[in-house]
């Protein structure tokens, strides 16, 4: 078990920057999730920590050791690969036992540890099979068992759930969470799925184009996004972002439709952020402003309304009994207590400039 530090870590291929000057301190036993869209450099970061990719610049510390020049085998990490990387010619038992065998674990210690790891991921009945005789979920669990059979300093997991179907993914997510709290080993977990990130992480690092946009607890990045990218990436449905202006305490959309009263300085160009849960749909004329229903969706647990208001689409979450027709005119009200303001140019949250949103106070 150990803390991990990335200091100004950079990876370039020619002029292409995969990971840009990245610094993170991961505490001992912390579960850190690297979250970002495909191609943002998550895997590259993880591979540099594992020693499978050489950093162009910067330092990697595991515990109190600088490991830049250490071979993967000497870094004492365990990794779950996106496609699992199981050894196809070995049985499940041999797959799980391999990290022990190759590290010269005494023979009599191997079997019980493999058994225990297999039990932890509920694979005990499959030890004699080859990977190709297993389902996707079972393979994933073999990869997991191979990682937990030792007690490494650090776990690395690269989108371990992404190859599973939706239902299995949810149940494996819970198992992973349970396992990680039980094992209490520092973990770096890569995903592009914000729900996975939110549910598993102690802290989330949101990445884009090789740069960390925000690093914080799930609550922090959900409640307090630092910029437009994070605001738009976290949450399902994503936060509504409306371009407009503020005059005399009223935010109006770009075409001049007043949308909400806001306690902020005047500003000619600003992006307003509001989550679907903070917009209420009521009858026509009853809300702050009127809107036209563009699409009505019922998910079973709740309903999603996409409405057109001030020339822009806004998604509203309603309760499961809400019924609206397409093209119906309704009234909407934005919850003035939960609004975010961003600079449309830089994308940054407006906090300490002349304009401030209520959430920043």
């Amino acid at each position, binding site marked *: 078990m150990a803390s991990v530090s990335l200091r100004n870590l950079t990876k370039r291929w020619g002029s292409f920057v995969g990971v840009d000057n990245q610094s993170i301190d991961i505490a001992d036993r912390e579960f850190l999730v690297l979250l970002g869209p495909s191609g943002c450099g998550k895997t590259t970061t993880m591979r540099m920590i594992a020693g499978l990719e050489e950093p162009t610049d910067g330092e990697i510390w595991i515990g109190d050791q600088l490991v830049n020049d250490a071979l*993967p*085998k000497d870094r004492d990490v365990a990794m779950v690969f996106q496609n699992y990387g199981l050894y196809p010619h070995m049985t499940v038992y041999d797959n799980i036992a*391999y990290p022990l065998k190759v590290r010269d674990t005494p023979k009599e210690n191997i079997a019980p540890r493999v058994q225990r790891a297999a039990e932890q991921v509920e694979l005990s009945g499959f030890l004699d099979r080859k990977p190709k005789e297993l389902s996707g979920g079972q393979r994933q669990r073999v990869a997991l068992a191979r990682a937990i059979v030792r007690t490494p300093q650090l776990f690395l997991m690269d989108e371990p759930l992404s190859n599973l179907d939706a239902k299995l993914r949810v149940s494996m997510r819970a198992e992973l969470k349970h396992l990680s709290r039980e094992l209490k080993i520092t973990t770096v977990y890569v995903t592009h799925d914000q729900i996975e990130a939110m549910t598993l992480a102690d802290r989330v690092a949101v990445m884009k184009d090789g740069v960390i946009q925000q690093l914080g607890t799930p609550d922090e990045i959900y409640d307090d996004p630092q910029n437009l990218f994070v605001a738009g990436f976290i949450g399902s449905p994503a936060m509504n972002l409306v371009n407009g202006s503020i005059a005399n305490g009223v935010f109006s959309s770009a075409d001049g439709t007043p949308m909400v009263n806001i306690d902020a300085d005047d500003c000619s160009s600003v992006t307003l952020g509001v989550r679907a849960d903070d917009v209420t749909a009521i009858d026509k004329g009853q809300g702050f402003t009127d809107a036209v229903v563009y699409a009505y969706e019922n998910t079973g647990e709740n309903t999603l309304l996409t409405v057109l208001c001030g020339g822009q689409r806004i998604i509203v979450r309603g309760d499961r009994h809400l019924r609206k027709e397409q093209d119906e005119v309704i009234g909407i009200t934005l919850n003035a207590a939960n609004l975010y303001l961003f600079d449309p140019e830089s994308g940054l949250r407006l906090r300490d400039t002349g304009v401030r949103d209520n959430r920043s106070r």
Partner: protein
Amino acid sequence: MRDRTLKYLLVAPAVLVVFATTIWPLIESLRLSFTVGRLNKPGSLDQYIGWENYTWAFLYEPAFWNSVTVTAIYTVLTVVLTTLFALALALLLVPGGRFRSGVQTLLILPFAMSPALIGVSFRFMFNPEFGLFDALFGVMIPPLADVSWLADPVLAFAVCVMADVWGWIPFLTLVLIGGLASIPRETLEAAQVDGASGWRVFRDITLPQLAPVLAVVIILKTIFSLKTFDQIFMLTNGGPGTATQTLSHYIYFNGMKYGQIGYASSVAWLMVIPMIFLTYAYARYVFRKN
């Protein structure tokens, strides 16, 4: 015309060609192997003598056993050496390995040469008066300066093996590169992270996954080594004496030079036996399920 008849009609020319060039000579040679079969003796091609040709080879012909021994040693040496060199080269040249791909195209050169040409060129290279290798070895290893390579039984054999290995390395290397490239990279990386050294990764992960390709390569090379003829013919013509006389060469000599076509046919059919086993094994590997 019905499709059923048409399809047979369409393959008929190909079947005829195969029959005329392969099946028919095969049957005919089997028949000849049971006859006296001397080209210079009219009527002997139809004069049946049962298994006499076969027993003759086994019981009374030291030259036959000599060529069996030569072929066996030649096969083992060339198969082992070619495979080892090709594997080493493939590991160096595999994409993502240490060298970039430009070198790979150079590799094909020796393979583009016909075995006969390889034989001739090696014969020149080891010519005592103006051979490049002869001079080179003489400079590098002074005790070898005055040897006449192709006149010494052991050295001539070594030169034959060397020429064969040189000619076959490219093909085997290319096949093995293909095999290596198809090994999932994640399995190699997983092993590194699991704690394996470079050698352990090779032994535990690379080699077992390469095994089917390696088996095919070894079987194929064995078949070709057992059949070797043209290279030897051009390089040493079986000599000095019979030091490099392979079975194929022995068959050729008896059949074409001495006109003992019946006897030659029987030896040829003796060679078919290991070939059938090897071909069967080869087919099993190539067409295996999964």
